[in-house]
């Protein structure tokens, strides 16, 4: 199991949880706090998926505007705020990738503006460390090839068709590989939930 979260991290998570609660209660000034605390992390996600600074910024705007409009969608019983926000940001970016003309892909390092000192919370706001360790362990149990494709789907937002093309295999083959991998991944994760 991974190290316990540092105090700074616990503090940041608590501040975010509190801001989400205020937002859900209708306090819209909470949105600015949430933005300040999470923008760097969420921008990292939309930028990675969309591979274009302008598109990633547009997606980021969508995320927060959506959050403001539907703050009640977040269910604290289901996920931590940062986990939920990160998933939300990635899903919005993927949606944009699927409907738009954007070409996804990794972002060149030159695209990445340096971080200002006043954005330290991005570091502290990691998704649950124990959970992170568990998914890593389960993924590591898959064969190398399947790991690579599943990670490529997650990190670069590739579809089955794109993965098949890149790997130069038939679409059906790629689907088989990934589905088998996902089946094993699910079994491993469920086993860990029982432990």
């Amino acid at each position, binding site marked *: 199991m991974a190290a316990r979260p540092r105090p700074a991290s616990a503090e940041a998570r608590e501040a975010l949880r509190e801001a989400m609660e205020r937002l859900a209660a209708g306090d*819209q*000034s909470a949105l600015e706090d949430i933005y300040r605390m999470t*923008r760097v992390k969420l921008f990292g996600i939309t930028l990675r998926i969309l591979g274009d600074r302008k598109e990633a910024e547009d997606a980021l705007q969508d995320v927060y505007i959506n959050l403001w409009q539907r703050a009640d969608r977040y269910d604290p019983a289901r996920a931590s705020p940062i986990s939920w926000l990160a*998933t939300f940001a*990635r899903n919005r970016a993927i949606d944009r990738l699927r409907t738009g003309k954007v070409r996804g892909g990794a972002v060149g390092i030159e695209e990445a503006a340096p971080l200002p000192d006043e954005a330290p919370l991005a570091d502290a706001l990691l998704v649950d460390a124990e959970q992170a360790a568990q998914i890593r362990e389960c993924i590591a149990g898959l064969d190398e090839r399947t790991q690579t494709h599943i990670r490529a789907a997650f990190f670069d937002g590739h579809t089955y*068709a794109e993965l098949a093309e890149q790997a130069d295999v038939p679409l059906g083959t790629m689907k*088989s590989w990934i589905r088998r991998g996902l089946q094993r991944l699910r079994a491993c994760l469920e086993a860990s939930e029982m432990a």
Partner: protein
Amino acid sequence: MNGPEDILPEETGPEGTGAQPMRDDPMLAAEWALGLLEGEDLLAARGKYATDPQFAWRKEWWDNWFAPWTDDMAGAAEPGDHVWQGIAGRIAAQAGTEGGGLDAASGGDVIELKVRLRRWQWVAGLTSAAAAVALALLAFAPDNAPVTAPGAVPAQIAAADPMVATVPIGETGLRLDVTWIPASDKMLIAALGLSADGVHDHELWLVPQGGGDALSLGVVAPGEVRSMAVPQDIAAELHNGSRLVLTREPIGGKPEGIDAGPVVAEGAFTRV
């Protein structure tokens, strides 16, 4: 352990190569969470999510497990300042104000004001249209300090809290909402329930606390929310508790040299 949604496979992959794993709903949820789907499959998954709680549960289960991976994506860059500006602008626009043009610093103030106006609507029963226009005045008025000097805003507004008066008109249920925003030297008059009868206009007056002639705030525009710049002599007379009266006048308002018409309604300002 198997999830509660474990049901019989409903579909196998069309490209079956013999050992094709089943694509049941949990699998579809996994594929969607990973971001693999497009076209028809994506639509199908979205449809199921909206209608099938078990499917939605499983999708979120996968989302949750994949979420730690986002830690490896994050922290590379800072979005431009215009991003927050855009968010604040869109939110202000959706709140019914004239959107856009916010700078990043005043965006937060506007949201804060919005919260305050909402509270105000409850306290004073201010109509939402009037509240929205009040917000627009504060945020966008060209001669308004918040836009040009965002740093100075909170103190300024705190020192000069807005005041609201509601002026009920008889037993009709109709009323005027009058909002005075010292920070902008603007008064906002919402006469949404009123309609013109073609024979009369209504004129709004401020009754000075120390006595003396009532000061005209002008003819009310029926059915509209109007803002007016408030002259210095009138602004000086506006206090918590200041009384307003509404008189019925000929079209165009009280003629020079003639007494004002009958008072049809009155109200008083309350600081909020």
